[in-house]
């Protein structure tokens, strides 16, 4: 036996695949992308004995090898191509014993591709509670496949699986479905075109290629037309024939105990959780709880992260010799890292909620409850979770939209997610709302500050729905859209599964969004630190002079912050800010805001830091009151009115609500849609929406 074997873990959604993967590999797993796709590839290692280890690849759950979504396509792509580096030596097929027939359909298809298969029979406990028992030996004889009963969530049967993986002689090579009804000449031709010897694999590839993949599609279609081959009819016949074979095997090995048709917990729970009134009330209640968690519980860990970065930047600034390198480290790299890490608590908390509700089985119900509402907007029930996640960060949320089968519905969901108010907008809103209403102001029993904040979230959500409706009219759909989903039985959440999901999501955010935020932060640092040489020199000279004049009455520290502000004004960022001023003037913005708009491209919250530099608020940049006071006390030279009038502040808030000022989002949309086209359309659309809305709001209030 080889020292390392590759095992693909395959099964239906909700069959316990993730639990088995975690049980086999523990934390010894890593996530990468399948080549040429954006779909997560989870691989891990498990030791079988002293000499042999197995590389386990977790393939996305699917019902058949005729893929319907981007996720499912990956499973098919890995299993179809023997030349693929990830092509497994063996498929470990996991099936839900409480729903065996449907689960086995995929097993027979996988086996017919010529890959050896072992069957892990999961959830036998649930089946037994319903009075259904399987005789493992009879099932194994009937299917001609080794069968191992397991309980993935309780980690039972793992040692037996490993023993089977080592036993190479025992791998099944049995095939199930015969193509005897299909024209032989057609099969020969298909084998030739697809360059495959296994006729079933060849025909299946040809069918998928004719609708999904681009390569050879035309050639295959011509061939199908020549023999008047009805692919749909064939697929239907194939599936029904497979069920027929499965029925036999199941009947032989299945024993039912006297009627134990107790009302299941799931049925009882769904009566309430999908109830006309209670169902919606509980959903809204959970949503409220999630917001509560994001906004109030997360403030403590966020404070720690911020303090930690303040202390470490201070340390670096004081320890390293002053100069460009010091500046780059503190104001470029550390500032960027801090901007990423500070949002990690909110993102972890939100995804913890989602992971728990997903593991329990509730998230499928959210889709079920909300589907009707999402439909007029060109989305479906499965769009709800990505949209809610969008309130933490658009990057992992856009990745989460992969489960949506229909391309159009998925695309619309991706396009509107960035309109949901993400956590990076929160500090911007907090600063701006404080300029509109005093923090203590009350309106009846409510805090006015909180009401305006909620209004901004609703504005974002409303814009997302409106835009979805708009996109729905313009995006063509190639396939019919349907919404079909298993509603799995409720289970107690497993801490291990949730922690591993959180780790993955956290990593996706820190790496996916983080690397771009840090890179842009460094570029923006350069733009803000350097400028046309003569101007920068003039500022340096002026402050050198002032520091020598004892009579200025200012401390060295005050002079330093004033110098920073003036340097920013003459830097390249300042030059850009002034350059775009004519464009943003109609919105009520001046060049100072222009600078902040540009620096916000790293991440929106950079607005606050930039404003504090421009208004030379030294020291703790988090001292919002200081910035607010400085901004509020600025007056327009021409009109004599406050610069930050009601109109300007509202206009600015609307601009931040709608504009796509996030390079990480642009990048993730490009990789997910595999085209710059949609990333550009989204950027242009959101910029136009922001500009026009701000213009309208500015004129409304002034």
């Amino acid at each position, binding site marked *: 036996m080889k020292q390392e074997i590759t095992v693909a873990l395959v099964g239906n959604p909700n069959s316990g695949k993730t639990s088995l993967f975690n049980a086999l590999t523990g934390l010894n797993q890593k996530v990468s992308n399948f080549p040429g796709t954006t779909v997560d590839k989870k691989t891990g290692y498990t030791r079988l004995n002293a000499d042999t280890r197995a590389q386990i690849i977790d393939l996305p759950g699917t*019902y*058949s090898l*005729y893929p*319907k979504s981007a996720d499912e396509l990956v499973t098919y792509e890995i299993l179809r191509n023997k030349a693929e580096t990830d092509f497994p030596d063996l498929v470990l097929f996991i099936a839900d014993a*409480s*729903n*065996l*027939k*449907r689960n086995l*359909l995929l097993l027979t298809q996988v086996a017919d591709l010529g890959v050896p298969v072992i069957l892990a029979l999961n959830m036998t406990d649930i089946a037994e509670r*319903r009075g*259904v028992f399987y005789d493992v030996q009879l099932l194994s004889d009937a299917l001609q496949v080794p069968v191992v009963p397991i309980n993935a969530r309780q980690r039972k049967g793992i040692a037996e699986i490993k023993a089977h993986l080592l036993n190479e002689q025992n791998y099944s090579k049995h095939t199930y479905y015969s193509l005897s009804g299909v024209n032989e000449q057609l099969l020969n031709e298909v084998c030739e075109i697809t360059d495959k010897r296994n006729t079933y694999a060849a025909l299946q590839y040809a069918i998928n290629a004719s609708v999904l993949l681009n390569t050879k599609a035309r050639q295959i279609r011509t061939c199908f037309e020549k023999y008047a081959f009805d692919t*749909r009819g064939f*697929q*239907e016949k194939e*599936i*029904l024939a497979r*069920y027929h074979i499965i029925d036999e095997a199941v009947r032989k090995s299945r024993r039912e105990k006297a009627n134990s048709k107790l009302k299941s917990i*799931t*049925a009882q729970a*769904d*009566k309430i959780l*999908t*109830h*006309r*009134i209670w*169902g*919606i009330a509980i959903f809204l209640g959970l949503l409220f709880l999630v917001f509560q968690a994001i906004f109030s519980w997360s403030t403590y860990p966020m404070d720690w992260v911020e303090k930690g970065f303040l202390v470490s930047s201070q340390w670096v600034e004081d320890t390293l010799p002053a100069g460009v390198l010091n500046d780059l480290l503190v104001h470029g790299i550390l500032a960027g890292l801090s901007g990423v890490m500070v949002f990690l608590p909110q993102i972890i908390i939100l995804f913890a909620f989602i992971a728990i509700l997903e593991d329990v089985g509730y998230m499928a119900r959210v889709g*079920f*409850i909300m*589907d*009707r*509402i999402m439909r007029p907007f060109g989305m479906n*029930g499965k769009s709800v979770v990505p949209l809610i996640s969008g309130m933490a960060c658009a990057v992992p949320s856009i990745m989460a939209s992969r489960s949506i089968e229909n391309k159009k519905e998925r695309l619309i969901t991706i396009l509107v997610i960035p309109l949901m108010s993400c956590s990076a907008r929160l500090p911007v809103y907090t600063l701006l709302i404080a300029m509109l209403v005093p923090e203590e102001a009350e309106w009846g029993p409510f805090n006015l500050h909180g009401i305006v904040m909620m209004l901004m979230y609703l504005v974002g959500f409303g814009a997302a729905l409106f835009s979805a409706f708009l996109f729905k009219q313009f995006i063509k759909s190639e*396939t*019919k859209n*349907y*919404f*079909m*989903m*298993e*509603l*799995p*039985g409720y289970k107690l959440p497993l801490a291990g599964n949730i922690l591993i999901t959180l780790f993955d999501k956290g990593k996706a955010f820190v790496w996916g969004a983080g690397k771009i935020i840090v890179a842009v932060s460094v570029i923006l640092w350069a733009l803000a630190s350097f400028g046309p040489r003569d101007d920068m020199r003039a500022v340096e000279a002026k402050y050198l002079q002032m520091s020598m004049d004892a009579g200025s009455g200012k401390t060295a520290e005050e002079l330093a912050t004033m110098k920073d502000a003036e340097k920013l004004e003459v830097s390249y960022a300042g030059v850009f800010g002034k350059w775009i001023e004519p464009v943003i003037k109609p919105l009520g913005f001046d060049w100072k805001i222009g600078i902040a708009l540009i620096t916000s491209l790293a991440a929106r919250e950079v607005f606050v830091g930039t404003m504090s530099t421009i208004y030379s608020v030294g020291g703790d940049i988090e001292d919002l009151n200081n910035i607010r006071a400085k901004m509020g006390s600025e007056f327009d030279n021409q009109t004599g009115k406050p610069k930050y009038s009601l109109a300007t502040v509202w206009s600015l808030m609307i601009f931040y609500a709608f504009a796509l000022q996030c390079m990480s989002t642009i990048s993730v949309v490009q990789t997910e849609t595999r085209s710059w086209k949609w990333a550009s359309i989204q950027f242009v659309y959101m910029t136009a929406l922001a500009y026009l809305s701000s213009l309208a709001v500015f004129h409304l209030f002034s």
Partner: protein
Amino acid sequence: MKLSELQFGQTAVVSEVLGEDLSLKLFEMGLLPGEEVALENIAPFGDPIAIRVGEYKMCLRLQDAENIEIKLN
């Protein structure tokens, strides 16, 4: 009778699935002629519906349920 007309408490057997794209997906999910179905839940806004198919529970939209012919038991 159509699946969309099934009432709570009734069980029926699927006799035919119309519509090509739909039938394939439904077959793969185990909803095929001969399977027993029962209505389990209706979403708060009246659509989609959750049904028991064989041994598990799935949901689908009414517009798709209209394409599924059933016979009451």
